């Protein structure tokens, strides 16, 4: 088992550098340069000034030299300095040690995605099981329709509707941001409650599509498990229906879900770009949107590295879990 983990871990290293090389090249293929925001359509800039700026950012070198420089920094865990005019180190933008732990971009995005993952599992598994247990029943049909509506409705639209209802009309929840203007003056439980209130809508919206997809997978996986001979055997033994369903069918049906979860990590981060922009949440998604718009190469690369790393760790964890819960894999 340990050997397996080690092998997998070593295998990740070339993949990681492959990802960075490809990303680096693809980013540079997009038209425009980081210096554009200073220079383009600006009457006060001369060609000499432009050349000077490009030299300042090292953009005058061939792309392979630029990648080499980036690589030599990254192996020393230095993500470089942002090209935007604030010129902050990339790592400070993602993981700002001068602010409280829960205000750092990585924490915020990670927290929302983890919460939404739990919400997805907590809702999707029961729905899927219920639907699979009585396929084509009224419950199955109702949940199917509801789930498909949830899947089809654009996230930004759902988000705006929820804001209209819960924030503007009812005034129960804040519309955007992660904490209120008077946050500093609240008591500690008050601050905690304030954060929770700000998280409700974003977590729900980001889970919305996931619930739909995951419950469908759960349904089909559960149906497949229920059709096996060992279920018939279990029932023939006289086991209670609960035991059949939860001990024999559900355990087997959960296997494919583990793989699916590992694979959906990058999807979560991609989704963050949308809901963090709508809800004005200072997380990694919002940062990557800004960085891409400004062609801020070091920040984009830093974010891609972290996302790639998290995705690979997600996959590795999924595989380890898989090996752990499925004896057939462990034996091989």
């Amino acid at each position: 088992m340990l050997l397996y983990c080690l092998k997998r871990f070593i295998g990740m290293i070339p993949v990681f550098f492959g990802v960075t090389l490809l990303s680096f090249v693809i980013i540079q293929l997009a038209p425009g340069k980081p210096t554009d925001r200073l220079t383009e359509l600006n009457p006060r800039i001369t060609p000499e000034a432009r050349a000077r700026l490009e030299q300042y950012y090292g953009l005058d070198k061939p792309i392979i030299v630029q990648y080499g420089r980036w690589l030599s920094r990254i192996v020393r865990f230095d993500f470089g300095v942002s090209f935007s005019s604030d010129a902050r180190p990339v790592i400070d933008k993602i993981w700002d040690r001068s602010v409280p732990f829960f205000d750092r971009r990585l924490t915020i995005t990670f927290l929302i995605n983890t919460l939404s993952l739990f919400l997805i599992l907590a809702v999707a598994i029961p729905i899927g099981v219920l639907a699979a247990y009585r396929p084509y029943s009224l419950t199955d049909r109702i949940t199917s329709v509801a789930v498909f509506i949830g899947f089809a409705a654009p996230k930004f639209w759902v988000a705006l509707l929820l804001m209209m209802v819960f924030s503007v009309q009812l005034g129960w929840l804040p519309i955007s941001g992660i904490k209120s203007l008077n946050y500093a003056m609240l008591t500690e439980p008050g601050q905690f409650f304030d954060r929770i209130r700000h998280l409700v809508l974003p977590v729900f919206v980001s889970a919305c599509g996931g619930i739909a997809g995951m419950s469908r997978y759960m349904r089909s996986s559960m149906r497949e498990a229920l059709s096996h001979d060992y279920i018939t055997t279990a029932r023939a033994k006289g086991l209670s229906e609960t035991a059949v369903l939860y001990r024999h069918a559900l355990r087997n049906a959960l296997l494919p879900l583990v793989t699916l979860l590992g694979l959906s990590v990058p999807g979560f981060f991609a989704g963050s770009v949308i809901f963090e922009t709508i809800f004005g949440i200072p997380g990694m998604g919002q940062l990557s949107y800004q960085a891409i718009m400004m062609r801020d190469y070091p920040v984009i690369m830093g974010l891609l590295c972290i996302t790639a790393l998290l995705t690979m760790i997600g996959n590795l964890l999924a595989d380890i879990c898989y090996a752990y819960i499925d004896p057939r894999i462990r034996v091989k």
Partner: protein
Amino acid sequence: MFSNIARYVLLFLCIAVIAGKRAESKTHHDPVYGDALVVGTIGEPSVLIPMLATDSASHDVAGLIFSGLIKYDTDLSIIGDLASSWDISPDGLTITFHLRKDAFWEDGTPCTAHDVLYGFKTITDPSTPTAYAEEFKQVLRAEAVDDYTFRVTYRERYAPALTSWGNMAVLPRHVFEGTLLQTSPLVRKPMGNGPFRFKEWIPGDRLVLGASPSYFLGRPYLDAYICRFIPDPATLFLELRSGTIDFMALTPLQYARQTATDFFQKNFNKYTYPSFSYTYLAFNFLHPWFQDKRVRQAIAHAIDKKEIVEGVLLGLGEIATGPYVPHTWPYNPDVPQYTFDQQRAAALLDAAGWHQIDTDGVRIKDGARFEFTILTNMGNSLRMNTATIIQWRLAQIGIKVKIRVIEWSTLINEFIDKKRFEALLLGWSIGVDPDQYDIWHSSKVRNKELNFISYNNPEVDRLLEAGRRTFDIDERKRIYGTFQSILAEDVPYIFLYVPYALPIVHRRFHNIHPSPIGITYNLYRWYVPRDMQRYRLSP
């Protein structure tokens, strides 16, 4: 003298407007301290040092923290800010600024001529990544004569010189000396000399400024200026609707329709003033069809600008006739106008050789159908709608127009810089000084320069050169007046409209006086009557 009178007339008008507005409010209040203004914006500042900032979000906030030598008065004339007065030498080459002695940095250090000199040295230092160095490179010599006298000498007469001494080149020397400006942590938590002081910045969420008790024009009445960053326009508007932000810029649709409800009328005041920008349709002079003036004039006659202002801006803008904002001093209203006249347009096209008509109604000349593409940038629905109206109108006179909407960077790098376009629908933000040498002078056609349409008119070149060497305002008015007449006759651009800026502010804020430079110029005088105050700052 003239400008002084104009200032009073304008002031009077403002008072009249306000008086009319306030007629219904019963009580009159004396200004009191307290409360905060919560501003909602889509863009987040990146840096709070004016010379490093490139985006309007950064400048809006930095402008509250840093005061420069001069600023614009409400009538667009230049008045002193840190400088109480200045003298221009008879040859027009040397400006001597006399600084006021009651200006201090946040830590109590006096703000002196050495700070201006330090700012000047930093901005002209090649290692400073700034977009604003060029104007300061015209300076031959800069010196701090004494603590409160600053003198600059220019290589040659340069009329826009005075306007460049805003807050771009003033830095606290005692804080920055010996450090590298662009890597200093102070660029994101600066120490300034203006009406507000930096307090807190949560990236992606909000930025908080507090009133400066030592501001030389008096402590602002408001305790704080809070800027919230909400990247999504729809979310931003919902925040306004739920009363959690006090101040934002509206779109024409929001102004005319979405805020026309009882709720907004009861709780907010809306203002309009022409923005310093215009939207235009530009022709590529390297394209043979558009080299013919009759073709450009025909298209001008075929476009109904009034209909565009009504339809796209919902009436919240003015028709543009040249590259200046109506009612400002360089603006010349007496230029050749192109009334909407399809017959005249058709006649001009016939005369230009486009008299054959294809089976689908498109004009033909030498076997080529009159089809061209208008390029515009993504994300600006006003421009897309304008392009669509133009497309429809030109189809009526036998010109087939295609519209391509392209992402900004791609548009600039792949199409404009390489001069690969037929027509462009874009806008310019303009300065208060009328110098537009960079956009129209025939020498400015190299790669990345701004005369990307390759316009070339020797008379225009001569006027532009004369205009930037002349200080006398009446003389400049004459020069730029002629310049506008020539542009109107030549039609290198079809000047379409000047949109209005449409700010909305919560009603509890008093002392707001709209002017041609907007409403925030006297933010430090805004106040909220005691019984209406909403926010209390933490002790």
